[in-house]
């Protein structure tokens, strides 16, 4: 049915995207298979031997198993902040979508401000020190929640606006108290946008480099993104280990991607078309 021109176009598109988007990842994988000497060449040569496992072991053991600590820290931070974000943002989105008060304008202004304004780094550190939260995992969690709330709220509010209000009222008549209405009726209905939130925020927080750099100093507090700096200075850049490290920390997003590929697109859709 389709003309030859479109077949050629399709092949060209596949080839172009392969070169631009796939080859860099192949490069990472190849490098992770090489030994130190060969990786120093930084070329596209085929690995002369299977060194992936050795590299992984070495990366994981480096600096007193820092990688393990980092994975635990990053996972804790991600899970805790995303959980808090989901519940708190959905609560705000719910009341914001349902109740029209004169404060709505102010709240929406603050949400937009949160999306735009860059966090004031040093004053935040000063404040965290005052609150004894500086350099702690729970401090980091609260920071991630504060910084990412606006985006989650926007996603939730747009979705909640599509849920008929009669449902809340039916629940009220059924004897539901506010917390019942929210947790038993509304929150379960938000599942599609909750998935979007989980994916977007967990990937963002897991990959976050800047905020842990500022607010979570110290080796015992390392997050996975910071482990990348282990091999650049320390070993005079051991490229095989560096790329093995990149490969390792790419696995969690890859898993998320494989499970939620479809939902991400659908979820972003819901938020974006509305503007």
């Amino acid at each position, binding site marked *: 049915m389709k003309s030859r021109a479109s077949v050629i176009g399709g092949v060209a598109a596949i080839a172009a995207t392969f070169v631009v988007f796939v080859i860099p990842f192949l490069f990472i994988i190849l490098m992770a298979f090489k030994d130190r000497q060969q990786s120093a060449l930084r070329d596209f040569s085929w690995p002369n031997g299977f060194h992936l496992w050795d590299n992984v072991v070495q990366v994981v053991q480096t600096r007193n198993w820092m990688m393990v600590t980092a994975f635990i820290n990053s996972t804790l931070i991600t899970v805790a902040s995303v959980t808090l974000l989901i519940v708190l943002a959905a609560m705000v989105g719910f009341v914001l979508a349902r109740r029209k008060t004169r404060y709505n304008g102010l709240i929406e202004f603050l949400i937009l401000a949160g999306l735009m304004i860059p966090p004031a780094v040093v004053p935040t550190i000063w404040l965290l020190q005052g609150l004894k939260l500086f350099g702690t995992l729970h401090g980091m969690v609260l920071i991630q929640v504060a910084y990412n709330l606006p985006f989650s709220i926007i996603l939730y509010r747009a979705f909640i606006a599509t849920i*008929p209000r*009669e*449902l809340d*009222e*039916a*629940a*009220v*008549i*059924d*004897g*539901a108290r506010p917390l*019942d209405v929210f947790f*038993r*009726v509304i929150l*379960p*209905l938000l*599942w599609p946008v909750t998935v979007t939130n989980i994916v977007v925020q967990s990937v963002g927080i897991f990959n976050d480099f800047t905020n842990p750099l500022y607010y979570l100093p110290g080796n015992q507090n390392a997050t996975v993104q910071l482990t990348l700096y282990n091999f650049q200075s320390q070993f005079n850049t051991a490229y095989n280990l560096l790329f093995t490290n990149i490969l390792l920390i790419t696995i969690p997003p890859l898993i998320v991607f494989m499970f939620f590929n479809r939902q991400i697109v659908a979820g972003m859709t819901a938020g974006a078309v509305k503007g």
Partner: protein
Amino acid sequence: MAGLELKSLRKNYGGVEVIKGVDLSIEHGEFVVFVGPSGCGKSTLLRMIAGLEDITGGELRIGDRVVNHVEPRDRGIAMVFQSYALYPHMTVYDNVGFGLKLAKTPKDVRDKKIRDAARILQMEHLLDRKPSQLSGGQRQRVAIGRAIVRQPEVFLFDEPLSNLDAALRVDMRMELSKLHNDLGATMIYVTHDQVEAMTLADKIVVLNAGVVQQVGSPIELYKKPANLFVAGFIGSPKMNFIDVTVQSIDAGTVTIVGKDISPVAIPADASGISVGDTVTLGIRPHELSNASTGSIVGQVMLVERLGNETIVNIALPSGSSWLAVLDGDHRLAIGQSFALAFDANAGIIFDKTGKARHPAG
């Protein structure tokens, strides 16, 4: 036993009064229908009774309690919504049982109540389904089941049949009637459809612009509408009206005449009306018949032949247009002259304020 008592109930939305002092008493076990055009406040009134809207002023009693500030769950009411408002993520079983679960009813009691309600509504086979797997009529049943299971003293219905197709609506109407007889509970029902109101109600409350126009049995409203609004709203096709002049007043009758009508003496309460006044005459289309001696003569504009009856649209000399519903089939030519007669007892005189002047007694 729960009757309701509304005492000068008011509702303001930011300075705009939408319910302007409603007084109403509803007996236990009555089926009361609130009817009126859209925006008349009937749904707002129902939602105030449900506790979904705050009451700005006045007093609401359910049973012997003032419930102005009582939570909906403690008012002894249940409500069926226009869109059914079934919880999409719960099965029919859980939808029906949600209220009981919130009330921490023991599991076995809950189960029995859910199954009883399902049996009454003949939807036992639907219990494991999700709302999305149900037809409109089935959703309606689930919504009613959710109300029944609470065993409320008062059922509230907010235009529950408006999302169903015509045939299903007739069926559900009958089922609701039957349910009312079986349960013996008080039911308050909101609709804009006067046929639903006429067929279901023990008592109809006609509302317009936040004011009760008339309260009465369906036949009372049909036969003796209190004013022009009720006369025009109740009955289908709509009542015909023309402006006429009072020619003379006798004991118990008012003789009127007009551009469209030769003098007729209509039984009416003439107090306060004087000769020469302009009043409105109303006659239902079904009360008109074709007679060459008729007091009203017009031109046939449109004929709808339904077989058992014929609906004729007639243009009167003044320019107003009337409908007549004639028994049997009539073959009429467009443009032909047509004379209408009616029994003087069927005519209703409305004074300048729109109030009906039914004869005394």
